[in-house]
């Protein structure tokens, strides 16, 4: 079965420290990879995506993610966390073949940044 795993339910970091939110996937082929963020009582906001090319992609709000094909991972990173980064983060994949457009989401990781 196609799946996305976010092994940590919650990540706690101090403001100013680097953060990493982990994501691994198990799908056929090389999917498109996405990160979304959800703030309380808000919709889902797009952060960044990997389609092809450089394994390190940069996105909104200073976030970046590193694609590792051999480890089938797409970890989200930020060099210096802000309290305002506290939110729920979702990793998602979409298959390149079949043209279904379906996004498969991980279970989400709550990021808590403390002052």
């Amino acid at each position, binding site marked *: 079965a196609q799946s996305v795993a976010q092994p940590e339910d919650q990540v706690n970091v101090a403001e100013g420290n680097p953060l990493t939110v982990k994501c691994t996937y198990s799908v056929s082929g090389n999917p498109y990879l996405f990160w979304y963020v959800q703030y309380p009582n808000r919709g889902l906001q797009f952060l960044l995506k990997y389609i092809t090319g450089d394994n390190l992609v940069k996105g909104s709000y200073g976030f970046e993610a590193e694609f590792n094909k051999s480890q089938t991972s797409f970890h989200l990173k930020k060099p210096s966390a802000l309290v305002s980064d506290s939110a729920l983060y979702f990793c998602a994949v979409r298959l390149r073949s079949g043209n279904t457009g379906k*996004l498969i989401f991980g279970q989400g990781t709550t990021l808590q940044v403390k002052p």
Partner: protein
Amino acid sequence: SAVISQKPSRDICQRGTSLTIQCQVDSQVTMMFWYRQQPGQSLTLIATANQGSEATYESGFVIDKFPISRPNLTFSTLTVSNLSPEDSSIYLCTSLRDTPDTQYFGPGTRLTVL
């Protein structure tokens, strides 16, 4: 990027009734999708709505419970029928022109069933 709006933003409904959610995209798109986010859970695809054809439902979702309309290339509706408290969720709409594209989500509809 497509801008997606949804109505209503939230509603409280009685058991046994139905709620229809509207999704409007600001440009023509090939595919529209409806997702459900149950409390404290991730997002699960309900169905894909293509204009001019019947919606394609994911395993565990049926047309009688979640009828979908797609009358044109910018609009879709999702009806959640015969509501029960287990239907209390956030329902989100998104769209896609081509598979490498980014999918932007609507603000969601928060449904509470009493």
